[in-house]
């Protein structure tokens, strides 16, 4: 178990050396002002998202504290998810699961949220095209097109989606929500588009756990891919072949 990471590291370094070298050559050979790699990295407001990036997340369940709901609370606050005291139908974009291996008694705590699949069943079943995968891998509902049929809720193996049953008021300006539409975790798209991390990840780290790492799965130099290269990780229901953007370590 200890061996794997040490073996993996030099490989990674070599690979990133090559990508950097390749980028250097590309910069030299292209006309001035034309770049293959955006050195500024941050996305500008006026640029569209592209498939160069695939947003993803690693949840280290060995660091996730039992009973801690910092991520859930941060998500509720960020998006104004105030409940109606109806736990069965109140909107929930992220929830905590406490699991126990019946044989060994080993307990796990982990947050469950939209897994941002590359092949999402919610998108397959949506009759209007409201459910879609954005180019950078974020699975979203375009609520302007959603008719509230809830097929996607049935199709999702992770129970990640909610339907809004009540008329709402006092929504957050950056998180429009309304009766009759389905919604789920957006990876805090409004923050990510402006170079910030999702609220849950930030809260987890502020709570001192750092159990959630957010980043670009396509970028060999991101902390996320580096950690994924060192820690064993799993997709929940990997057998479904959905290629989830959210991965778990320690389950």
């Amino acid at each position, binding site marked *: 178990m200890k061996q794997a990471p040490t073996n993996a590291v030099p490989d990674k370094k070599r690979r990133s050396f090559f990508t950097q070298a390749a980028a250097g050559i590309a910069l030299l050979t292209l006309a001035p002002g034309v770049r293959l790699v955006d050195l500024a990295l941050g*996305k500008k407001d006026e640029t*569209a998202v592209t498939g160069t990036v695939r947003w993803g997340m690693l949840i280290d369940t060995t660091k996730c504290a039992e009973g801690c709901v910092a991520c859930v609370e941060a998500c509720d606050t960020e998006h104004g998810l105030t409940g109606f005291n109806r736990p069965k139908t109140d909107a929930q974009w992220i929830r905590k699961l406490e699991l126990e291996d019946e044989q060994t008694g080993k307990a796990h705590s982990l947050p469950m949220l939209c897994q941002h699949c590359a092949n999402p069943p919610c998108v397959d079943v949506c009759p209007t095209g409201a459910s879609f995968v*954005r180019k950078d891998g974020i699975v979203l509902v375009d609520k302007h097109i959603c008719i509230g049929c809830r097929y996607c809720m049935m199709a999702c193996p992770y129970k990640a989606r909610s339907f809004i049953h009540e008329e*709402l008021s006092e*929504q957050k*300006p950056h998180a429009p929500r309304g009766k009759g539409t389905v919604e789920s975790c957006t990876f805090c798209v409004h923050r990510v588009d*402006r170079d910030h991390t999702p609220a849950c990840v930030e809260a987890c780290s502020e709570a001192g756990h750092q159990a959630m790492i957010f980043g670009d799965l396509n970028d060999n130099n991101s902390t996320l891919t580096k950690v994924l290269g060192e820690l064993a990780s799993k997709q929940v229901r990997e057998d479904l072949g959905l290629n989830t953007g959210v991965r778990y370590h320690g389950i």
Partner: protein
Amino acid sequence: MAIVPWLILMTALSLLASVELAGAQVLGNSRAAELDQCVEPTEFMRRNHMELLIHQRDETVHRGIRTKNHSLVECIACHAEKDSDGQFVSINAEGQFCQDCHVTAAVSMDCFQCHATKPDVNAQLTGLAIAMTRPNCQR
């Protein structure tokens, strides 16, 4: 002659009407009141703001484009009025900027079932001011 007072009245009425159409809608206690211009020429805005908004909607939701000029959040941030207590009034409340003209023009729109009708008082992430550091941001 009895017709003269009528003529005067009609002229006065039509003058009043044209004054209203010529921009009386921007309300005193909003940020817009301190500015000379909308995000596009006023005449253009009066006729075409819906197209701008619908276009921006798709650009933002599907392509992640977050420019501010045609953003609905920004219309509200600039056009929403504060009451005498300094509290923002909903942009779709009676007599308020978007609502007033829409009532006159018999427009009904569902945007505010979902979209906030007041600017974010904390202005946390309304697009104009975000300067928070995100320790875990990997880009």
